[in-house]
Each structure stands twice: as C-alpha cells, then as structure tokens.
C-alpha cells in the first residue's frame, strides 16, 4: 500500500518515491492523496506539500509555487514551477 509520488520542476525531477500519503495545497482547498485515489487533476496554489512517508510519522514539508497536481492510476505527479528545499 504505497503511493507513487513524483515532484517535477522544469529544471529537474525532484522526487520520485513511494510514500504513504501526500497532502497537496489545491487551488480550491487542500486534499490528501492516498494509494488508490480516483483520477483527479487540480491546479495548486503556493504552499507546502506535506509528504507522509509512513502512516504515523511526522510529515515532511516541501514548499512549492505554481503548477498542478495529477492523480492517475500510476500515482501522484506534482508539476511545480518552483520548489524550495
């Protein structure tokens, strides 16, 4: 039960790993993505992605700016214009 998570910026592929859950700052509100999420696409606002590697672990925050998130059968892909950290 792992979600494949990819974070891509124009300059490079920042992350490509299996995680438990990611909370994405969507344009119309935050949403969490777990494995098996229905296909979904949303633009994102500037904010922090919260990556939960394990179910009970503390989230890792990644600041992103501009872009969108796509959930498909193969996992979650976040295309961000800029990533901090």
């Amino acid at each position, binding site marked *: 039960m792992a979600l494949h998570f990819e974070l*891509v*910026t*124009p*300059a*490079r*592929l920042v992350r490509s790993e299996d995680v438990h859950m990611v909370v994405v700052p*969507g*344009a*119309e509100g935050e949403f969490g993505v777990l494995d098996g999420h*229905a*296909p*979904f*696409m*949303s*633009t994102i606002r500037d904010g922090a992605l919260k990556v939960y590697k394990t179910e009970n672990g503390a989230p890792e925050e990644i600041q992103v700016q501009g*872009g*969108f998130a*796509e959930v*498909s*059968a193969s996992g979650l*892909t976040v*295309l961000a*214009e800029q990533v901090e950290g």
Partner: protein
Amino acid sequence: MASLKELKGRINSVKSTQKITKAKQMVAAAKLRKAQSAAEAARPYAERLAEVMASLAAKVSGDDAPKLLAGNGNDQKHLLVVVNTDKGLCGGLNANLVKAAKAKARELMAAGKTVEFYLVGKKGRAPIKRDYEKQIAAQFDTSNVRTPGFEEAEAISAELIEMFESAKFDVAHLVYPIFQSALAQDPTVQQLIPVPAPASAADTGAVVEYEPGEEEILAELLPRYVKTQLFGALLEREASEQGASMTAMDNATRNAGDLISKLTIQYNRSRQAAITTELVEIIAGAEAL
C-alpha cells in the same frame, strides 16, 4: 623568401592562436557536459506536461477552447521567434539557424503572409537585420546572464503572450537548434502559438475529476506549456552552442598544428640554406688564399 626572424614570428603567433583555440575547446567540452545534463533533467517536466496537455486538449475543444489553443481565427501575421547564441566561435551554428529562419520567412511571404521576427540572443541580429530590417518586432537579450534559465523563458513567454493577446501576430513559430551530437545541431522550425494540438494520449477510460474546471486548468496550463517550450529551446541552444564550439575549436586547433609544422619545416630549411651559404663562402675564401 621570408627571413628567419619573420618566420619565427609567424610560428609564434600561430602557436598562441592554437593555445587560445585549444583552451576554448576544453572549456566548451566541460560546459557541454553540464548543458547536456541540464537538457536531460528538463525532459521529464516537458513530457509530463505534454501528456497532461494532450488529455485535456482532447476534452476541451470547439468554441470554448482558449485562444492560445485554437488561435484567434486569423492566419495572416506570422512571428518567427529565432533563438540564436550570444557568443560566436561556434562554427556554422548561427549561420544555419539564420538560414532556416530566412527560408521559413520566404516561404511564408511567398504565401502572402506578413512576417516579423522576435530575436533571442545576439548573434542573429546582424544577419537578419541585413535582409529584414523593418520586420524585427522585438529582441530579447540573454547575454547578461551566465546560463539562461527558467526566468528568461518566463519573461520571453510573457512578452509573446502579451503580443498575441494584443493581436500583434496570429501565429508564432519557434526556430531553434536541436542538439543531436557535438557534430550535428539541426535547426528546427516549430509552431509555438497557437499551441499545436498534441497527439491525443491513449484514453485510459478513467473518469478524471477536475478542480476547478477543465477550461480553467487548460487556461493555466497553456502559458506554462509555451514557457516550457521556450525553456527547452534555451537549453537546447546552450548544448548546441557548446557542442558546435567544441567541434569548431577542435578543427581550428588541428589546422593551427598543421600550419605550425609547415612553417617549422620552412624555417629549418632556410636556416640550413643560410648555414650552407656561409660555409661555401668561407671555403671559397680559404681556397683563394
């Protein structure tokens, strides 16, 4: 025949030229590796974006498609965005780009369209100005940054989209080199605006939910797509420049080497000739006594 001193001077000057070309070649080789890996690192983003675009563009079509995708209904004013390098010493790269741009311009003008140029990079300015001085709409200078990056692409695309919205042009084409190898960089002409509808991706059959709506996402996506295309072009240009420069400087270094050995032979011959003459004179003088 040139005197010994003159020959020596020439040999030295060719030698120092060779040093310069060799240094430039090594610099280009080192930079090429970096530029190539930057171009490769940018590929995943462009690919994903193209995939998403394809799946969205298939859904949003018809009258409510954004202008950037469907065009503004005209096909009269064309803009050629020519991406040249800022520095020379890279062989025929810029000449080839300009040639491709001019060929496209002639083709469009033969079809009765008006053509304007938008020039990125310094080296395209002079040769295009020579033929189409009045048709240069704008220029973008990338020479003040070391490696043009996403910010430059952003600035260029913002300006282009603004020009498009104020109806300064109907169709934009991008002319840029595609880096094949250090020996080959093909100038390519590609339609930039309106965004050519990508080949639709395989429909997975899954119902995708969109937030906000499909049109809103597409409207935000299209400028991003243009930006990514320009960013890709800048990266390709960087890699092509270094590749072409490496090859050109390699040739120059080799030519200088050939020239040096030729001049050295000539130098040695005339030195020997001088010695022989001197000896003959001495012997003749001794015999006369």
